[in-house]
């Protein structure tokens, strides 16, 4: 078979993906293409959904994972017939799986954009089209489900024409808006690009957008341009106006090109003058109204409608009609088929034979979509954004790589560069027949009817590394070629040119072609192709660049190729918990694998020990759980719950002083609490992890000084935030002692003022001081470290768990006002109250807690920054959802040229569960949020407030004086306390009288 032969020439390859809104018929359409290549029986095409190989995909009837197939297509160009290889990637349409779509796109050069003519342009259509254009992927349009216009909507051909025209306009508006954007951007970039015309452009955009401007006209979808096809996947037909043009040019002796131009649009036939005229007004007035049909209606739609009409009934008259049609069109349809009583089958037989879907679509793909050679040249800036380096050596390597990618060079000796867009888990039953799962019925049928495609290459024997490989890397080869046993460098997404991190090496175990769930090993795959590479399980996490160029010379591919910053879209978070703790490790391992297999998943171990799984939506979550249960963590019983939300506590005013006296009355310490300005607290919060590592490495003062550079830098950034807080800073200068919780945090402890009679000092304290101020000599000997250490430890305790609900403190400053030591009370012998240090810790802890409660404590909650794009119609309901979730809109912007609003809001984490889903539901899928963790913010409500005056009591109901149900802050505090098993002021029974009366002899 010619597959491999044809593959040798990259210009005979097309890598395309199928994009659409959910349920617009992507998978059915791919079915009909597969049928034409003989993988499935044409009778099943459109129903089988061959590429939906997962059980839950078949059950739900939607695609969840993108999967690919290789098709062979023969097309005539003049007299020559060429074979083309089409690598087809089917993608999911549901918004939860946008990540899958992106990974599908990143291996492709072109896209079939499928739109249901019944429904028109939908939310996800817009999203995927934009994504495709952002990636420089050339789309062609397929108007699917044409049969619905006739069978379901009962449209007349003329109405159908108008309807189709409408949809075309809608699609073109999206393209147009984007073009407008890029024109504006291009003009902004113009000045820069003039200076350096040679450069590819730093942002990878300059060179590209110019190209696009030239192509603007051809970017528009129009049947006359040949980039729009009309199809009905379920009935197995598809055509472009070209097909009809060829038909009629023979019949009427018209030029084919003329017909192609005039078959779509406002063109009419003037039968008398035998001329094609533009616009209905140019027709002679006498003409009968029926003649005033655009040519598309008259020549194309009418005919198709006739066929559909003929199958409405199965009386002899209709059968006769059908026979006529078959005869006229010279179709190869058996009488049994067109006479079939079931209209569906008859129409399918006739239409499929007249306008076979695969031919119509694949012709378009081959003609209109770029080959890898062309596409890689056009997209170079996007794929590989590097400008020429200055040094000689670098420039050579740069040029070599550039040329290889640009020309899609597959010759011997050209550098191998490939991109892994995702890791696919191998089908289970392929690797181990013992744990074979019963296949869903549909699928086993598929397997029976599947004619295994034969390939030239003998399945190459995997190098005996003995380890079972579980994943196949879904790979696009950009240049060079890959075969089994090749040793490659694997560059992770974080690799930067010249750095020594983020890369590893691996050996290719096997190179395969992907056919839905089947994999056929081949000997070698060359530039421009899509294939699967085995043997990279340990080297590749999700995406990677494969190459044989060593790291010193490697310039990595654009990292956004692998998808956007995934984490920001992950709005649904759940905690997974194994049923028995012994299985924690297995569950963790399973989650790791899931993370590898799914581009849109993130997995964490939280500080609390929870295993958290972050996904894009409820549907996605469901699929991930199925994956875990049945595949990655098989046999591990686990529970799913909402993750724990953490809060912080702070004070809002400077409170009264509180005295801490040790149990033996020897030491009394006067303390008070005050708030730290928000700006300072936020900065300390941001820098905490870095400082912690900096200080963690430094075990003593001497070490700290040994890395003065790092320290000075850190000090610079820290001191900067204090520029308008001089009072606090001056106080810190002489008195700063420590920071907490956990040795560094947002809370500050100030030592006693200089006037205090008993200053004390310790090692730990001077380390802290060194962070902000110059190194001071160790004064340890002259001071009493026990007391100081005790106070610091008490402070650390308190800041780690505040009095409201035992959450860590945030942005509070505690100052030691005075220390009084009375040695007279200490008698001889052991202290009955235990060691002094312990006494100080506990009394300071107690006093600090009192200081907090008497300085107006407040709860601090985490906020998420939410970005929402929505249309005018749904703006109202979006605001409503935000308001309900205590969201605060910080920015609203209308996008130039389109009525799309960009709204930025802050939503508390507490309210974020289910937010994405509610928002989607309320706005009929128009608005979907992107959430990122933003910052901590004080909840202004006083959690301890209880209504007291008459008015307050009247405002709140008199009934509910505890306000547990009204005071939000109190509610959150109580919820957290209850979760932790802390004491909650709570009535067990609310109304004594309303308890159920129990009978005595029950």
């Amino acid at each position: 078979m010619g597959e491999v032969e044809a593959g040798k020439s990259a210009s005979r390859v097309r890598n395309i993906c199928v994009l659409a809104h959910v349920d617009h018929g992507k998978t059915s359409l791919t079915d009909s293409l597969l049928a034409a290549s003989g993988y499935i029986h044409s009778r099943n095409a459109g129903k089988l959904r061959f590429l939906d190989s997962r059980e839950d995909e078949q059950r739900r009837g939607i695609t969840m994972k993108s999967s690919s197939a290789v098709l062979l297509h023969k097309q005539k160009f003049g007299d020559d017939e060429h074979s083309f290889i089409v690598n087809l990637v089917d993608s999911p349409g549901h918004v939860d799986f946008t990540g899958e779509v992106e990974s599908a796109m990143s291996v492709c050069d072109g896209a079939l954009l499928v739109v249901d003519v019944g429904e028109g342009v939908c939310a996800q259509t817009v999203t995927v089209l934009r994504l495709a254009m952002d990636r420089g992927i050339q789309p062609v349009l397929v108007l699917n489900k044409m049969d619905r216009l006739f069978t379901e909507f009962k449209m007349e051909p003329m109405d159908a024409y108008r309807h189709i025209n409408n949809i075309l306009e809608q699609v073109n508006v999206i393209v147009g808006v984007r073009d407008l954007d890029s024109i504006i951007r291009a003009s902004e970039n113009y000045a820069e690009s003039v200076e350096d015309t040679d450069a590819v452009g730093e942002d990878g955009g300059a060179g590209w957008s110019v190209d696009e401007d030239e192509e603007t006209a051809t970017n528009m979808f129009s049947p006359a341009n040949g980039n729009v096809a009309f199809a009905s996947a379920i009935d197995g037909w598809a055509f472009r106006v070209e097909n009809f043009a060829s038909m009629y040019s023979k019949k009427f002796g018209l030029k084919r090109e003329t017909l192609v131009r005039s078959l779509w649009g406002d063109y009419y036939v003037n039968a008398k003058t035998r001329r094609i005229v533009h616009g209905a007004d140019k027709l002679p007035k006498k003409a009968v109204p029926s003649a005033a049909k655009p040519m598309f209606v008259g020549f194309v739609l009418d005919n198709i409608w006739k066929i559909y009409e003929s199958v409405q009934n199965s009386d002899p008259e209709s059968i006769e009609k059908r026979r006529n049609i078959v005869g006229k069109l010279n179709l190869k349809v058996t009488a049994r088929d067109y006479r079939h009583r079931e209209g569906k089958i008859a129409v399918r037989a006739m239409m499929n034979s007249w306008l076979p879907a695969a031919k119509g679509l694949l012709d378009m793909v081959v003609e209109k979509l770029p080959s890898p050679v062309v596409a890689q040249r056009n997209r170079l800036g996007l794929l590989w954004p590097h400008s020429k380096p200055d040094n000689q050596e670098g420039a050579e390597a740069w040029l070599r790589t550039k040329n290889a990618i640009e020309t899609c060079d597959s010759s011997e000796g050209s550098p191998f560069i490939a991109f892994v867009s995702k890791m696919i888990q191998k089908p289970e039953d392929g690797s181990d027949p013992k744990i074979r799962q019963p296949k869903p019925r549909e699928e086993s049928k598929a397997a029976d009817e599947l004619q295994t495609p034969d390939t030239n290459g003998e399945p190459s024997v995997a190098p005996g590394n003995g380890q079972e490989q579980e994943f196949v890397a879904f790979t696009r080869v950009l240049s060079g070629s890959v075969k089994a046993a090749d040793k490659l460098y694997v560059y992770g997404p974080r690799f930067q040119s010249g750095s020594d991190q983020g890369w590893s090496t691996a050996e290719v175990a096997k190179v395969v072609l992907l056919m839905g769930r089947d994999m056929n090993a081949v000997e070698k795959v060359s530039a421009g192709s899509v294939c699967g590479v085995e043997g990279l399980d340990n080297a590749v996490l999700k995406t990677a660049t494969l190459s044989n160029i060593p790291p010193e010379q490697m310039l990595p591919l654009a990292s956004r190729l692998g998808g956007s910053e995934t984490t920001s879209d992950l709005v649904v978070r759940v905690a997974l918990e194994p049923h028995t703790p012994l299985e924690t490790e297995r569950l963790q391992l399973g989650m790791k694998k899931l993370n590898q297999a799914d581009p849109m998943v993130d997995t964490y171990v939280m500080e609390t020990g929870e295993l958290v799984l972050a996904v894009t939506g409820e549907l996605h979550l469901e699929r991930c759980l199925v994956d875990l249960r049945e595949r990655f963590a098989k046999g591990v019983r686990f529970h799913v719950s909402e993750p724990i939300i953490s809060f912080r506590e702070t004070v809002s005013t400077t409170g009264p002083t509180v005295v801490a006296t040790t149990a033996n009355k020897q030491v009394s310490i006067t303390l008070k609490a005050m708030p730290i300005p928000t700006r300072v607290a936020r900065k300390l919060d941001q820098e905490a992890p870095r400082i912690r590592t900096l200080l963690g490495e430094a075990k003593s003062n001497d070490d700290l000084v040994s890395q003065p550079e790092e320290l000075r830098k850190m000090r610079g950034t820290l001191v900067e935030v204090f520029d308008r807080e001089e009072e606090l800073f001056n106080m810190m200068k002489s008195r700063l002692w420590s920071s907490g919780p956990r040795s560094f945090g947002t809370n500050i402890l100030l030592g006693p003022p200089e006037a205090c009679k008993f200053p004390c000092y310790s090692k730990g304290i001077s380390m802290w001081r060194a962070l902000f101020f110059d190194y001071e000599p160790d004064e340890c000997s002259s001071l009493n470290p026990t007391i100081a250490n005790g106070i610091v430890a008490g402070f650390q305790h308190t800041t780690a768990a505040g009095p409201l609900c035992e959450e860590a403190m945030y942005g509070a400053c505690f100052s030691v006002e005075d220390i009084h030591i009375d040695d007279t009370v200490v008698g001889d012998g052991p202290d009955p109250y235990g060691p002094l240090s312990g006494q100080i810790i506990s009394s300071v802890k107690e006093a600090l807690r009192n200081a907090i409660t008497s300085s107006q404590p407040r709860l601090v909650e985490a906020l998420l920054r939410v970005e929402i794009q929505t249309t005018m119609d749904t703006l109202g309901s979006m605001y409503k959802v935000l308001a309900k979730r205590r969201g605060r809109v910080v920015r609203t912007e209308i996008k130039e040229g389109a009525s799309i609003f960009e709204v930025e809001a802050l939503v508390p984490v507490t309210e974020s569960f289910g937010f994405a889903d509610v928002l989607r539901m309320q706005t009929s899928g128009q608005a979907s949020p992107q959430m990122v963790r933003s910052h901590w913010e004080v909840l202004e409500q006083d959690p301890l407030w209880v209504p007291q005056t008459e008015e307050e009591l009247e405002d709140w109901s008199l009934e509910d004086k505890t306000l547990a149900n009204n005071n939000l802050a109190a509610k959150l505090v109580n919820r957290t306390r209850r979760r932790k098993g802390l004491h909650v002021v709570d009535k067990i029974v609310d109304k004594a009288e309303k308890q159920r009366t129990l009978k005595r002899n029950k």
Partner: protein
Amino acid sequence: MTNVAVVRLKRKGKRFEVACYKNKVVSWRSGSEKDLDEVLQVENVFSNVSKGIVANKKDLVAAFGTEDVQKVILVILEKGELQVSEKERQHHSDKTYQEIASIIADKCVDPKTQRPYPVTMIERVMRETLHYTVLPNRSAKQQALDVVKQLKEHMEIQRALMRINLTAPSKSGKQLKESMSSLITEYENENFSGRFYEATFLIDPGRFREIDELVKQATKGQGSIEIVNIAVIQEAQERLE
């Protein structure tokens, strides 16, 4: 007598009782119920509630020094013996259960990863594997220590270690180190140079007092111990990759 919770107080050999609603007395005592009418069925003091015998004025005066029923009721409610009602018992045991679990989650880690276990997981193991029943008379902390012992048979768990920093005059350092060696779990860092012996080590939190005493005695008050970390746990969230 159903639906009545009796609070009973014996004074001067006499029994005094108050008739209350069920599930209310504990709330009253904890201060969450402030409305006396919600607690009392009848505003009166009885010598026997079930027989309906009201207490004698003379006895009241003898026992409480007043015949003001209001005041006596408050005393009885505060100090009297109490029939704990079903919901109150349930509530108490639920609370203790959670408290035990959260103490364990706070103080213990998985020795392999040095990360804590989530509270919910510990609660589940207590409930489903240990079938642990709360003892109403022991404090949550005591019970938590017991539960940890039992948990060790079913899962990998240990108390999170405490990291302390010792500073002592260098001459007593060596001797100190020897005497402490049995109390210390792990040495992290040592520094003999200079006038001071400095060391950081991990200890079982239960040993802290012993060590503190030891240091005090051995160095005659010149050495000191500083707590670096109360519970050494793996900090910060981590990506599973």
